[in-house]
């Protein structure tokens, strides 16, 4: 199975899955905290409309995890102060 790297940790994905699908498959539904109330957020609309699932991919910020297909060795950074 191929892997992406999320916050320094390898995360397996099935070819064809988005970053969000790979995170959800690993049991994660939140990977970001909100700016004002520091609330955990992750996937909500799943189709690119709500922007709740934003991550940084290969150093490029503001990416919707639900739209970007995972590719081997892609580097994903979630926000600091994650829900975990």
């Amino acid at each position: 199975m191929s892997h992406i790297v999320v916050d320094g940790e390898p995360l397996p994905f099935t070819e064809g899955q988005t970053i969000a699908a790979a995170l959800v498959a690993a049991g994660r539904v939140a990977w970001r905290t909100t700016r004002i109330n520091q609330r955990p957020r992750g996937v909500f609309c799943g189709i690119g409309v709500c922007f709740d699932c934003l991550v940084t991919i290969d150093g490029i910020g503001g990416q919707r995890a639900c739209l970007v297909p995972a590719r081997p060795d892609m580097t994903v950074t979630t926000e600091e102060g994650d829900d975990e």
Partner: protein
Amino acid sequence: MSELLDLVVVGAGPAGMAAAAAAAAGGLRVVLVDSGTAVGGQFWRHPPEHARSAIPTKDLHHGLRQYRTLCDALAAGQAAGRLELRLAHHVWSVVRDGDGFAIHMVDRRDAPREAATILRAPRICVATGAYDRQLPFPGWDLPGVLTIGGLQALLKGGGVAAGSRVVLGGTGPFLLPVAAGLAARGVQVVTVCEAARPTGWLRHPGPLLRNPGKWLEAAGYAAALARHRIPIRPRTAIISAEGGARVTSVRIASLTSDGRPRPATERRIDVDAVGVGWGFVPQLDLLIPLGCALTTSADGNSVIAVDGGQRTSVTGVYVAGEACGVGGAALAVSEGRLAAESILADIGAPPVLGRQRLAAVRAAVASQRAFGRALGLAHPVPPAWSSWLTDDTVVCRCEEVSAATVRSACSDGGAQDHRQVKQLTRAGMGWCQGRMCGPAVHCLTSHERAYTPAERIVATPVTLGALARLDEQPSTSHE
């Protein structure tokens, strides 16, 4: 493909596939653009072509024969050199350009890297579909609470279930396939809360009787739900969700006729995921700035007004599918075909469909639109839904604006619509540009009028870097 384009179709869901396939069959040079990695749109969402063996989705779909027929027709168009498919291209603006249109998009095949590109064509067909309509409730921003479309997209596109014990709620028939799909992947769907009463359909029996296909589809899902012992609770809603890092429970309640929770009917259910959806909001972002005339749809949305041939009020702009009224995939396919016929006729090209078949498509559109209207009337947003809100319920997820703040903008600030609330509170000003909270804020301010989304000049985010590189690139043109 040739530099000379006749038509750009935006959106490769059921409507766009049908329009592009028919237009190419009629001899036009067509580019079909979609932001996804496969054709099919949300309804026929599939993993990318190369990944289909790893992520089986066949059993999650309805109407796959139609989908394959359309895929074959698109392939024929491509083989004939008349159709070009551009996947992973996000159209962010369409503007007038001479006698035609400039379609601005970003190529995200190599995402997260993107490259801006422009297509020029004398006419466009916009088939951008719709997304789930949401109504806020306490806890709807907890991780694990998703739109039903989101649950479905993860299943169909990624083979992933977002939870193991789920309650679904909202209104409309879309709840059923999502419940059936989750159950098929081993998820325990505890219950489906349908806010409408089943007798709502009895007021409009005609459209139901004239669309036996819809009956069969619904009956199929009902049988699947019965097989998995998933109860559908009519006149019931999810009125709150609780949890911390993730949702852990929901409260459901029976509703009065106007949609208030009935006292003493509340029930708490442990869950690890929740799905909600209150019908759909048509995606009009590319069409409103073009000045296309709107009309009111029975489901409370403003939609694009079209004539009997899917022509909008703007010459050269055609619309098919949910953007001119939510009615489902079968209607979208019929409208796509009709749009292509109109485009051929307006150019002076011979039709693809014979007289009789065209009449049959028109009749199907009329009947399916009537069904869509009946659907909107039978599954309304409950008038008193906002009685579920507490003062601190987040209404705008992006800017984290509470219900109390929105209410005070209306009562003390005198805001009369969602645009004025936005100016006073920032609700709708964040990343999603009011796509999630817009209908709800609209309902909190004005009950009578249909919801018209704010004009969004940029329909999808695009980086300045990508735009800066645009100048050096050649673009396909009809000139």
